[in-house]
C-alpha cells in the first residue's frame, strides 16, 4: 500500500515538474531575429544586445523609458517602466525579459545589466557577432572582456 502510494506520488511529482518545466522555458532571441520576423508576438522571451547611443528617452513624467537595442545587423525599440539597474547606460550590453507587442516594440518587464564592469553577458557577446563570427562591438569594449 505504502509503496503504491509512493509510486503514484512520485509519478505526480514528475508530471508536475515536467509540465512546469515546459511552460517556463524562456528562449533567447537577438534583435536581427526579431527584425526578420522570426519571433512571435505576445510570447515572453529574453532579448540581448547593446543599448544604442543616444536612444535612451526618458522624457515623460511617468517612469517609462524608451531605448533601442541593437546587434550587428538590426535594432529593436524597447520600452520599460520602472527602475533600471545600476549598470544600465548607453553603449552597454543588457539582457531584458518581456514580449513583443503588435507594433513590433519589445515591452520589457525586467532589465538586467551585467554584474560588474569587466563582465559582458555571454548572450549579449554572442549576439554582437556578425555572420562570420567577428564581434562588431566597439573596440574598447572588446578589450574589457
Amino acid at each position: 500500500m505504502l509503496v503504491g502510494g509512493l509510486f503514484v506520488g512520485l509519478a505526480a511529482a514528475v508530471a508536475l515538474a515536467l509540465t512546469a518545466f515546459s511552460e517556463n522555458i524562456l528562449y533567447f532571441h537577438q534583435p536581427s531575429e526579431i527584425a526578420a520576423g522570426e519571433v512571435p508576438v505576445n510570447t515572453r522571451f529574453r532579448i540581448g544586445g547593446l543599448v544604442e547611443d543616444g536612444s535612451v528617452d526618458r522624457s515623460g513624467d511617468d517612469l517609462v523609458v524608451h531605448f533601442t537595442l541593437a546587434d550587428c545587423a538590426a535594432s529593436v525599440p524597447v520600452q520599460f517602466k520602472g527602475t533600471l539597474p545600476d549598470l544600465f547606460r548607453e553603449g552597454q550590453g543588457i539582457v531584458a525579459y518581456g514580449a513583443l507587442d503588435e507594433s513590433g516594440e519589445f515591452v520589457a518587464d525586467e532589465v538586467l545589466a551585467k554584474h560588474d564592469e569587466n563582465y559582458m553577458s555571454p548572450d549579449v557577446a554572442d549576439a554582437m557577432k556578425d555572420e562570420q563570427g567577428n564581434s562588431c562591438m566597439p573596440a574598447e569594449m572588446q578589450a574589457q572582456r
Partner: protein
Amino acid sequence: MIPEIGHFALILALGLALIQTVVPLYGFARNRADCLAVAAPAAIGQFAMLGVAFVSLGFAFYANDFSVAYVAANSHTQLPWFYRIAAIWGAHEGSLLLWMMLLSCWSLAVAAASRTLPREVASCVLAVMGSVSVGFLMFTLFTSSPFTREFPAPGEGRDLNPLLQDPGLVFHPPMLYMGYVGFCVAFAFAITALITGRVDSAWTRWTRPWTIAAWAFLTLGVTLGSWWAYNELGWGGWWFWDPVENASFMPWLVGTALIHSLAVTEKRGIFKSWTVLLAITAFALSLLGTFLVRSGVLISVHAFATDPARGVYILAFFTIVIGGSLLLYAIRAPKFEAGTEPVAALSREGLLLLNNIFLVVAAAGVLLGTLYPILADSLGMGRISVGPPYFNKVFIPLTAPLVVLVGAAAVMAWKRTRAELLRSRLWAPLIIAIVVGVAMPLLTVGPGALAAIAGCVLGCWAIATALEDIVRRCRGRRIMLPRHVLGMALAHIGVGVFVIGISLVSGFGGEHDVRLAPGESTSMAGHEFTFMGTRHVEGPNFVAEVGDFVVRKDGEQIAELYPAKRRYNASGQTMTESDIDIGIWRDLYVSLGEPLSGDAWSVRIYYRPFIRWIWAGGFLAAIGGLLALSDKRYRRRADAPARRAVATDRNDKAAHA
C-alpha cells in the same frame, strides 16, 4: 617573501594530505596500527600548513601587496581593512583556499574527536578527507594559485567588486563553506562504512553529530545569503531561484533528508544503503555547488571553456570523487543486511520515509531547473533559461505536505502508532493553528490572499505541534528534556516561522516605482513616504548621493530613511544602497533609482510584511541543530559499552510514552 611562504606551505600541505590519505589506507589494508596512527598527526600538520597559507594571503591583502595578482584584482588601498581581509574569499582562487582551510578545520576536529572512535574508523575517515583535500590542493596549485605574482606590480588594486563590499561578505561565505565542507565528514563516514562494510547504530551515532553540525552551518550560510541579497541587491527580494542560490540550496535539501534518515538508521537499523547514498549525494551537491559558483560555468559555458585546464580538472575531479564513491557503493552497499520488518505508514519511520522522498524529489526538481540550461547551451540546443515560476510550481506543492508532516513528527512513535493517539494529541494544536494562523494576518496586515493565510495556518501548525510535544513531555518531569529533543522541536518551530514569513510576504507584500521630486510624497500600505531631497556624501572609497525620506503613519512620523546611490572611485561602478526600516511585523524598504529631470528621482518603495520571520526561522532551525549537537549522547567515548546507549534509548522511549 610572505606570498612565497604561503605558496610553499600549500605545497607542504599537499604532501601531508597525500600522507594522510595513503598511509592510513595502507595500514587499514595490512592491519597495521602504526600506519593508522599517522592519520591524526598528518591532519594536524595539514591544518597548520593551510593556516600558514591562509594567514600569508591575509597579510598580502592587509599590507596591500599588489605584486600578488589576486590581491591586485580584488583589493584597493582605500578599501577598509575588514573588507580587505574578507576579500580573501572574494573571488575564485581565495575561496578555494577558504574551502581547503575549512576542510582542514573539520579534519582537525575529527582528529581531536578520534578518541571517541575506533582507531581504524577515525583513520579511514581522515584518509577520505585527506583525499578530497589532495584534489583541491592540486587544483589550486596547478590551475589557480592565489599567490601568483604579477610583474611589474600595479600601483593600485582594481578594487573588490562593490556588490561584495557588505558585512555579509564577512560572514556568509565562511558559514556556507563550513556547511559544504562539513558534508565531507558525513561523506567520509559513508565511504568508511562502505570500506569496512559496517553500518550499525554506533556508526550512525558517530555520523549524526557531524552531519547535524554541517547542516546547521549550511542553514546559517543560506539564511545569511538570503538576508544579504535582500539588503544589498536593492531588489527587495529574499530569494530569486538564481543558480547560485540553488547551488547552496540543493545540498541543504539532501542534507536535511540525510539527518532524518540517519535517525531511522540509528533507531531501527533500516534504510542503511539509502543513508549512505544520501551522504554521498549531499557531498556531491556541495562539490557541484562550489564549482558551479566558482568555476565560471554559470556565467557561461563558454567562460568555462576559456580556461580549459580548470574546466577539465574540475570535471575529472568530480567524476573521480563521485563516480568512484558510487562504484564503491554499487559493489559494497548490497552487503548491508536489510531490515526485514515492513515499514508501517503510521509510524515514525514511515513518516521519515515520506520526508526523505519529498526532500529528494524537491532537490531533483531544483537540480533539473538549474542544470538544464547549462546542458542545453553546451549541447548547442539554444539559449534558454528557466524562470522562478518553474521553481515555485514544483517546489511549493512538494514542500507544503512536508510541513504538514512536520506536525506529526513529534507525535509518531517508532514501529507503529495508533490512529486514535494521533487524533487525541493533534486536535488541540490543529485548532490553535487555525485560530492563530487566521487571526495573525488579519490583525497585523489585514484581510487578503487565501493562499497566504493557508500558508500561515500551515506554519502555525508546525509551531503548535512542536510546542505541544515539549509541553506534554515536560509535564511531571523534574529534569530537563534531552537537548536533542529540544533541538528537534526548535528546528521544527523554525520551519513554522519560516513558512509564516514566506506566506505572508508573498501574499501581502507590495512594491512600486514612482517619480518623486523634493517635497512630494507617495503612499504604500498605509504609510506615507515623503522625499525631502538629496545631499552629497563622501565615503572612504566612494562618493554618494543620499536621499532623505520621512515616513509617516496616520500623520505621525515613524522613520527617516536614507537610501543612497554610490559611485566607487576605483572602478567607477555605481551601486544602489537601499535603506530599510526594520520591524517584526513589516519592513519598509526604499531604494533610489536614477536622477530624472529637475531634482526628481525615480524611487522604488517596498512593503515587506513578516519578512524578518524568514531569516528568524532559518536561525531558529540552525540553533535547534546546534542544541541537538550539544546533547551529551553524542559525547560518549568509544570504550563505553554500547549497552548503555541502548539503555538511554529505552529511557528516552519511556519519556515518549
